[in-house]
């Protein structure tokens, strides 16, 4: 079969903005990094945006670079990452608006400003989304060519993720006039434009992540007016034995097993491992099927990697898998 993943990839990478959402811990930034890498392999200039991510978990790390923080930094040829800090984005906005440094400083140094910023509803989200829109629209100095061909956004976990995407709509409603309202409406138009923006959801083959992915898909369409275009099922346990071999593994009870394998390891231990794998493999299959039945969307499966920390080799492998199939 001509890779399903490659076809979906073609579709996703023609957009300008790719927003990834999903339950916490499912590997959004891992999948995002792999997608970004796959896009650069097609000659695109890509920016991967994270929001307020702790340095230890920044995508730059997955790509083999040091955490980059708040400045857009090229971590691989053609691949930039940035970790937006909402407070910093807001500060930039205040400076840009006030223009006089002394005045800006006065506002920024005021403790009330910080308290307001810390709790004002949706303000951070609006600022961050606004910044993402600016990055999407950014042009290079004199060539006037878009600075990035693709912006990949690692959105906050679902639950919070949907409220993140709801903010422009709420702001457009609450602030009918003035630049804030105008920008909120422009943002909403960008997010809802399927030729420019794609929303994808990441899950793992587990009940809660799958339920959440399905709920998110439904409510993104119903409450924000954005259609999810693809689902990524990360950490899939893929078949490693033929059907006949699986049957044999299950027939050979681990408790009774005696003897060694060719490499000297215990057959009993290997059978325990194999049975564990088969269980997980079956669960993976079950949830793949369930997702496919629940939504008429492409579902791209990515393999489970036996690592407790993801590095560049793992991201390359996932990018390969996205391209091939």
């Amino acid at each position, binding site marked *: 079969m001509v890779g399903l993943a490659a076809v979906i990839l073609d579709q996703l990478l023609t957009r300008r903005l790719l927003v990834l959402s999903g*339950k*916490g*811990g*499912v590997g959004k930034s891992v999948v995002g990094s792999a997608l970004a890498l796959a896009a650069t392999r097609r000659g695109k200039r890509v920016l991967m945006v994270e929001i307020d991510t*702790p340095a*230890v978990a920044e995508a730059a790390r997955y790509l083999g670079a040091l955490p980059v923080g708040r400045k857009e930094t090229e971590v691989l040829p053609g691949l930039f990452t940035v970790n937006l800090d909402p407070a910093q984005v807001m500060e930039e906005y205040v400076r840009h*608006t*006030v223009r006089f440094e002394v*005045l800006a400083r006065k*506002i920024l140094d005021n403790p009330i*400003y910080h308290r*307001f910023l*810390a*709790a*004002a*509803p949706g303000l*951070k989200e609006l600022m961050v989304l606004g910044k993402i829109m600016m990055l999407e629209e950014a042009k290079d100095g004199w060539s006037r060519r878009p600075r990035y061909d693709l912006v990949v956004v690692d959105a906050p*976990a679902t*639950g919070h993720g949907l*409220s993140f995407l*709801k903010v422009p709509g*709420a702001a457009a409603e*609450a602030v*009918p*006039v003035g*630049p*804030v*309202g105008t920008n909120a409406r422009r943002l909403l138009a960008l997010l809802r434009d399927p030729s420019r923006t794609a929303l994808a959801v990441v899950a793992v083959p587990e*009940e*809660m*992540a799958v*339920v*959440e992915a399905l*709920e998110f898909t439904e409510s993104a369409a119903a409450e924000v007016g954005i259609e999810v275009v693809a689902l990524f099922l990360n950490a899939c346990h893929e078949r*490693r*034995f033929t059907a006949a*071999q699986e049957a044999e*593994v299950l027939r050979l009870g*681990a408790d009774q*097993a*005696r*003897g*060694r*394998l*060719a490499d*000297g*390891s*215990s*057959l*009993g*231990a290997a059978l*325990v*491992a*194999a049975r*564990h*794998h088969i*269980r997980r493999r079956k669960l993976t299959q079950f949830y793949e099927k369930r997702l496919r039945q629940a939504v008429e969307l492409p579902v791209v499966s990515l393999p489970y990697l*036996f*690592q*407790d920390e993801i590095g560049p080799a793992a991201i390359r492998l996932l990018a390969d898998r996205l391209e091939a199939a």
Partner: protein
Amino acid sequence: MRDRIGAPAARKLALAARERRILVVCGAGGVGKTTTAAALGLWAAMAGRRVLVCTIDPSRRLATSLGLDRLLDTPKRLDLSRLAPDSRGTLWAMMLDTKRTFDTLVERHTSGAEARRRILGNRFYQQVSSALAGSHEYMAMEKLLDLSKDERFDLVVLDTPPTRHALDFLEAPGRLMGFLDASVLRWFLKPYFVAGRLTLKVATRTGAIALSLADRFLGLQFLQDLSEFFLAFEGMYEGFKERAEKVHALLRSELAGFVLVASPVRFTLDEALYFHRRLRDSAMPFVGLVVNRVHPDPTRSQPTDRGPRAQLAADLDARLAQVLEDQRRLARAERKSLARLEVDAGEPLVLVPELEADVHDLRGLREVGGLMLAEAGGGSSEGKARRPRARHGG
């Protein structure tokens, strides 16, 4: 590792589940926080207590893990008759409705229908009562105060909302209070609309600039809504603050206990460690650090066999060796991280091995509870009796 260190940690956590009034379950997103909260609640119920598990998770995961389609804003009693026919304990579950809790709070703290109507009808309030940063966390704490006095329950297990940083739960209420604090209003909004009259006579020059900026960027209507909101809240602030302080005191007392949850992924371990330090520094009662889904090392339960070479086809032999090697490597990497965490935290960990099946019903939760606490002895006879097949946790 489990046998050596698991027991005292499990005992401490079991004791807390048996004796405390409140357990607050915290951790980074995706570590199994909700499952842990539900499993702890079920375990305590099977040990004879009357337990309420409360979630504020906007994505309804507690319902899924309890095998229900939906949870309501009021406690719903679960049927334990098949799991524990003889148990005196009961298990209840509910999902907090942030907006409704906020409304109730407003009703409690305002005198007179007019004031109430003014707040509840305010457009800004309607937009923010569920979206204000920290309002989920604040309302959870607020609800906790009521629930801790509810005669129907011996124990309330609170599942905290998913946050990128586990610490948000402790800090968010403070941020909300900071926002509602009257001084924000005095600084730049209140003078603007006192008595509904537009005046630019604000107290400070910076305030005036901020105000004219706000006007230019946000528009008059929005500022009016906002200003009304603050004016209406001014009278309630003291009441809010008083209750926030009560909750804070409650959470510091011996009635409460914090359960930290992590997974063997490095990033979540770092989060747990950081949170643990914060609890210790602020003298909050810590009762356990649970690490979920630890991958078992298959060679631990099946010691190397010196027997003869097994009679297997070469291909199967090679694949078996590879599968074993993958799992062993992962298990060893995790054990290393866990050993380091244990040293850094100075606390024994409660390790829960990954199960072969997905946990999303009462039976699964009972299995998790058993794995988490059975070693502690006593308690739930059920949890003790049923040793899972998949128990090869090293």
